[in-house]
């Protein structure tokens, strides 16, 4: 073993990178090979594109209220106008920004909390685990919607941040529970014991040995959390608990309800944002079918048959 040979080697950091990238790349390929997930990814991509390019796509400004009020669909206003005289299509397009953003940010934050709590809860034993268990169970048994309403009402008009905070606080517990049980089963594996024999510390074992083996579960729990975040955001806005001055699908519904659009025959005002919410949530759920196939190869064979 000479030094020249050693120098020829890549840096270990570089070697690790392709490994992680390969895992993710393989995962995306598997998800893409599932037809349901493919459909979900296409729908999701459409919504993301619409959100990003909203200023280009929308015919008018989101809050331009200089048009005729309660107008029906017309070439100028494809979906009509609201009671305040805003263009519904433009509002719908701009509204995608809020839903996608809240969905992803709240989903990521809730997943991070779930990973941190779930993994440590699953790894430690004894009194500490009981304490965490008590707290998680507390969040699980409290009905989420009333809790959300209470918190949101308490922090009235906090805008975006508050909505996200409320969703994260109420949405992490289920993921933590799922990740905990997987952690518990992985911690009993020989390779975890072996890492302990190799002198690795608890933190390293949890994040370098256990965590990478649950990637698909974490991704799945992220999509689950994002779905419920989108639904919760729309729900809170609809109930008027968010910032009703911003334009989102939830606020469109809120104002439509306030102006009795259904009675005035403007069902599009309720239907269009409702459909968008449903489609976006559905796209994430569909992607989750593909994620399941990553963690369970048997489902994968099934899709190919």
């Amino acid at each position, binding site marked *: *073993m000479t030094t020249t*040979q*050693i120098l020829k*080697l890549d840096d*270990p950091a570089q*070697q*690790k990178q392709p*490994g992680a990238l390969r*895992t993710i790349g393989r995962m995306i*390929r598997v998800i893409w*090979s599932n037809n349901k997930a493919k459909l979900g990814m296409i729908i999701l991509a459409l919504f993301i594109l619409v959100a990003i390019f909203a200023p280009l796509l929308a015919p008018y400004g989101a809050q331009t209220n200089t048009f005729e009020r309660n107008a029906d669909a017309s070439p100028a206003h494809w979906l009509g106008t609201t009671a305040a005289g805003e263009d519904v299509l433009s509002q719908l397009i701009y509204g995608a920004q809020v839903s996608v953003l809240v969905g992803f940010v709240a989903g990521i934050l809730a997943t991070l909390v779930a990973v941190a709590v779930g993994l440590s809860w699953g790894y430690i034993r004894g009194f500490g685990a009981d304490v965490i268990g008590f707290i998680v169970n507390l969040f699980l048994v409290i009905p989420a919607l009333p809790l959300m309403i209470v918190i949101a009402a308490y922090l009235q008009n906090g805008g975006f941040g508050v909505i996200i905070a409320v969703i994260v606080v109420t949405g992490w517990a289920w993921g933590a529970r799922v990740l905990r049980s997987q952690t518990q089963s992985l911690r009993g*594996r*020989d*390779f975890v*014991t*072996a*890492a*302990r*024999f*190799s*002198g*690795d510390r608890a933190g390293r074992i949890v994040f370098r*040995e256990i965590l*990478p*083996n649950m990637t698909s579960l974490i991704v799945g729990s992220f999509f689950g959390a994002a779905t419920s975040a989108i639904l919760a955001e729309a729900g809170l806005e609809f109930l008027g608990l968010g910032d009703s001055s911003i334009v989102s699908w939830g606020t469109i519904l809120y104002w439509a309800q306030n102006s009795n659009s259904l009675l005035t025959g403007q069902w599009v005002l309720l239907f269009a944002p409702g459909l968008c919410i449903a489609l976006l949530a559905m796209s994430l759920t569909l992607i989750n079918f593909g994620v399941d196939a990553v963690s369970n190869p048997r489902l*994968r*064979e*099934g899709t*190919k*048959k």
Partner: protein
Amino acid sequence: MSDTTLTAGAASAGATSPAASGSAADAPGAAATPILDVRELSVIYESAGQTPVQAVDHVSFQLKRGEFVGLVGESGSGKSTLGFALTRLQKPPARTNSGQILFDGHDIRELDDEELRRQRQGGFAMVLQSGMNALNPVRRIRDHFIDIYKAHGHVPRDRWQARSEELIGKVELPVAMLDRYPGELSGGMRQRVSIALALSLEPQLMVFDEPTTALDVLVQHAVMDTIRSLQQSEGFTAILISHDLGIVLESTERVLVMHEGRIVEDGTSRQILDDPQDEYTRMLLSHYADPRAEVVSLPGFEDRSVRRADGRSRADSATSAPSVATRGKRSAQAAIVVDGVSKTYAPPRRGEDPVRAVRDVSFTLEPGQSLALVGQSGSGKSTLAKMITGVEAPSEGRITFGDLDVAKLRGKRVRELHRDVQMVFQDPYAALNPLHTVEYILTRPIVNFTGATKQQARMRVRELLETVGLTPVEQFAQKLPHQLSGGQRQRVVIARALASDPQVIIADEPVSMLDVSLRAGVLALLEDLREQWGVSLLYITHDLLSARLITDDILVLHDGQVVERGDTAQVLQHPQDDYTVALLDAVPDPRRARVSA
């Protein structure tokens, strides 16, 4: 008595199936037509995004009625795939891509689902390795039988009780078992129940896929005896699929040896034993030996066996160790002293007695010694290993390593213990994180225990790989566990155990998950390491043959107690305790089959 009733039952039921000739099984003329005729059968695995694997490759053979045939091969030989294909239990991505399977003259590949379902009664049945886990945990054993009667209607309702009792008796279980739930039965009992369930279908052909592999050594032996006597009394045709040539040769009349999807040898058990034609069969046979023999020899152990037989010289190996160690390794200095250790677990259910896993065990593992800890599962040998490595604390007694009191170690001190006491795990497939390269896996203990720099660690990884014989080292360092074979993985596990330069290695059944042909290599490696590095070895196993090969002393554990101890060769040649004798009898040995035959 029961035999006649069964034959009658089979005959009456057989009328509905194409196998109406079932009752003619013992007629001399019927024996001429094969019950199963496999012609040029090929099975291919086609997974999405992977290159197809031809698991079974143009296999042809015939089975006569009432024959008991063994199908032997190592993992990946396609033997189970063939078994699943024969019983039409194969699932995608496996696909039969050519050939015919004629069962009683009909090609079973052409049956539709309903025909296939009806065929299960009076046709062919399969007993799986995990069959014992196939029982529904919330239903009594009786209900499992009744389900089958209902599905096929071959037993009239008023005979259900009598028939179930008869079947459960055939597999040598008490009738009371019918009212138990699967969870209340041991693994061996559940496997017997699954055999009885298969029998209840009155099959003409039974395929046993590794029926005893998941069971404990002693139980394994008893279940095989049951299968053998059942086959003789019931007269069904049977295929025994197994990786263990010893078991197969002991039980069957004819053996098919499979290797890489092909049948490389087909002959009577006698022929295979006395005059094996194929290189592969000869290689398999060479890995069996009787641990009781004067001289025990396996491939890779030829020279050792002699030395051990004429009074092994521990003094020799101890003194030679430092000089052999080329890089000036320190040899083991501290002894592990286990003194009056007991371990009691809380009762599994309220009102039951606490489980006494280990009772008052004392022994000393001297520096450089190799000691075997032998016993069946549940004998407490793994619990002892956990206590010695500080994973669990003993309920009573003391375990010391040098001046460390193992039971009292916490946190950082445990890490100190692990620097000197390392472990080789049983299952090489579970002991390596599938996402880390060999390099990473080996670097961790080096960095943690020796404080080496990156460069030093990299050098050391390559040395270790060289030591365990994984060359070219550069290639192996970059590999992920799934790119390695079982034997190579176990070498990585051993390399990891060596990385911290330990004084003691505890090997918990290190070869039991490996194919027979790979075992000798791993054992020889352990033996070499002990001699050259001077580490002490605690070898935990139920396999007396391997204990004989690589250990000096032996400790036989039964129900947590030491029942026998002493020099390994002495104890195995002249066992005193009944339990040791039972363990010795359970070692499958093809040559012994010849003696008894």
